[in-house]
């Protein structure tokens, strides 16, 4: 076609070119290796160095793990078994994983009664099932009702006692809802909000006990009561961590909104709360929970230590989350607020439907970061005498039969935490991908 046009400047394309696949050398493993590992003599050197470091690490760790002794009653028995297998001539590296298998139950459940282990396991299953409708879009929405009921069910499974207790507490939320609906029907949004806060608080402070007794009398279903001091091991960390995560997010969102509010008192209270809780180390708050709170509470009141810890961990994480969410709010263009206003959406509807879905999406990495931090910080409760996995391991290492063992326990505990934190991280990445709407 170019023959006819070759001697003129004017040019008209008569066929459009279809796209073609790139040349073979630009694809595949060979190209990847050439580009990433061997692109220059310096990179060749770095590749060899990297492989050497990797090799020496694996050469140290793998035999240690591979030669593990899995069944023994004490560290000395572990060593005997190792020597019997590999001879005493040279020092063979070998892990004594028997400490994990022998103390498995303690590491996971602490001193929870052995015959009741099914209850924490059932609670875990309830928890995982309740996560479904919240975390994954493919699970039917209607199951959210199960998720709402799950915390009370889990509480009952873990601590036991009469079913009246958790039901009576759950009724408080129903009271809050009722107060809100009535308030917004007969008065303004402000009255509804205040009612939704004050009514359940009064109910919980004054009426929960009698109502629980009443329900317990009507529905005499009861599980054996397990006191908090028997809770321990990874179960303890998991309960504190999960409760903190679930409770701190809504509180953090409210604090972030409070900090942005034009209402003077709400604004200043939010700022004071955030700065005070963020500015003092968590360990100080935990010591406050375990020691000081007793001085302030009326004498004789027996306020569960674990509950106190959960509350303070929640408040601490909420202060961090508030700032993370505030960052997300600040990143939203003002036009989004204006468009919501211009359509006649009121403050709460605009927040719920337009602002928060976007602000939270932007904040996902920061939120998950805070969650992971909170989850790992639960190990600090060892300093106030709770027997979390670290506390358990201290007890085990003090036992004469396991004296001198270190690595195996910490590797195991680290692995448990890593699995949880890595899952959260992977889920957050999945969520970010799912919520991406800016491409086809």
């Amino acid at each position, binding site marked *: 076609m170019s023959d006819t046009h070759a001697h003129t400047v004017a040019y008209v394309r008569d066929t459009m070119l279809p796209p073609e696949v790139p040349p073979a050398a630009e694809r595949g493993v060979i190209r990847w290796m050439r580009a990433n590992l061997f692109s220059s003599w310096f990179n060749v050197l770095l590749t060899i160095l990297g492989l050497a470091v990797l090799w020496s690490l694996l050469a140290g760790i793998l035999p240690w793990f591979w030669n593990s002794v899995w069944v023994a009653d004490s560290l000395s028995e572990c060593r005997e078994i190792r020597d019997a297998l590999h001879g005493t001539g040279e020092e063979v590296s070998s892990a004594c994983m028997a400490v994990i298998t022998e103390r498995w139950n303690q590491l996971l459940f602490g001193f929870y009664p052995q015959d009741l282990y099914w209850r924490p396991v059932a609670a875990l299953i309830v928890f995982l099932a309740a996560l479904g409708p919240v975390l994954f879009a493919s699970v039917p929405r209607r199951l959210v009702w199960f998720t709402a009921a799950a915390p009370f069910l889990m509480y009952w499974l873990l601590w036991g006692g009469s079913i009246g207790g958790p039901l009576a507490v759950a009724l408080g939320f129903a009271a809050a809802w009722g107060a809100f609906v009535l308030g917004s029907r007969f008065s303004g949004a402000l009255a509804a909000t205040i009612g939704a806060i004050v009514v359940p608080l009064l109910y919980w402070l004054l009426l929960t006990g009698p109502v629980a007794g009443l329900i317990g009398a009507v529905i005499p279903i009861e599980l054996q009561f397990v006191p908090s001091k028997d809770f321990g091991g990874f179960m303890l960390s998991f309960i504190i961590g999960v409760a903190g995560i679930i409770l701190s997010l809504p509180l953090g969102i409210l604090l972030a909104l409070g900090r942005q509010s034009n209402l003077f008192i709400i604004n200043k209270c939010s700022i004071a709360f955030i700065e005070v809780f963020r500015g003092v180390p968590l360990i100080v708050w935990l010591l406050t929970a375990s020691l000081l709170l007793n001085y302030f509470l009326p004498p004789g009141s027996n306020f569960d230590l674990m509950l106190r810890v959960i509350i303070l961990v929640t408040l601490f994480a909420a202060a961090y989350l508030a700032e993370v969410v505030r960052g997300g709010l600040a990143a939203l*263009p003002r*036009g*989004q607020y*204006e*468009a919501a*206003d*211009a*359509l*006649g*959406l*009121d403050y709460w*509807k605009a927040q719920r*439907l*337009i602002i928060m*879905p*976007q602000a939270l*999406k932007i904040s996902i990495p920061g939120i998950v970061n805070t969650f992971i931090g909170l989850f790992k910080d639960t190990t600090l409760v060892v300093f106030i005498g709770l027997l979390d996995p670290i506390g358990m391991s201290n007890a085990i290492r003090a036992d004469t039969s396991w004296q001198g063992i270190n690595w195996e326990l910490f590797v195991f505990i680290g692995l448990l935490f890593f699995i949880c934190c890595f899952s959260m991280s992977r889920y957050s990445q999945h969520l970010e991908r799912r*919520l991406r*709407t*800016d*491409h*086809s």
Partner: protein
Amino acid sequence: MADTAMETGTGAAAMKVSDEVAIQITDMNKWYGDFHVLRDINLTVYQGERIVICGPSGSGKSTLIRCINRLEEHQKGQIVVDGIELSNDLKNIDKIRSEVGMVFQHFNLFPHLTILENCTLAPIWVRKTPRKEAEERAMHFLTKVKIPEQADKYPGQLSGGQQQRVAIARSLCMMPRIMLFDEPTSALDPEMIKEVLDTMIELAEEGMTMLVVTHEMGFAQAVANRVIFMDQGQIVEQNEPREFFNNPQSDRTKLFLSQILGH
């Protein structure tokens, strides 16, 4: 009411303006801190009128229409929209906002919702329209702005012109009696300006009350009943379009027109 006007109104018949007052602004003043942005604004807009507001940047024209639905608060004077006075009463503000549609320079679609959800959100949550009905109405208006096939996409996947047409449809889904346009074509590529203007012309022909801040003088000549020229926070001149363009009175208007029409 707006509904029937839209269905039946055609061409010349709809050009007739009623004497029913839609917006009444009296001695309105606004300050940003110490800066006096709007000075003694007096303006009466009749139902069915189409007003184009032009002027140099910083003259307060956007601020003026943003005061009408209380995106900006005025400090002195009175604004009455559809018989309701704008005050600090939140209920009145929300009521006015649901009667007054607004189209922004940067579209301000909700990026986390699909096109259809963008259009049904306010009818469902503010007007309490049943979802099915809201979706049918949304599809009706999306068809009207000629993009029904994009209903399930997200705003980020559409071109600027398409997004602005969705924004218009989103406002129309609330069945507003008045539409405000804040420089609706300023952020668009030249190729896309026309498709948005065509949509607005169609809307005008159906008798919608419109206040349009724009530099598109062709649009003003084609559909406006009245052109208002603003400078330094004041209404300098207003007239019907032919007179305004052919026979401007103030020197400031003449200078402005020569600058934007001169090239």
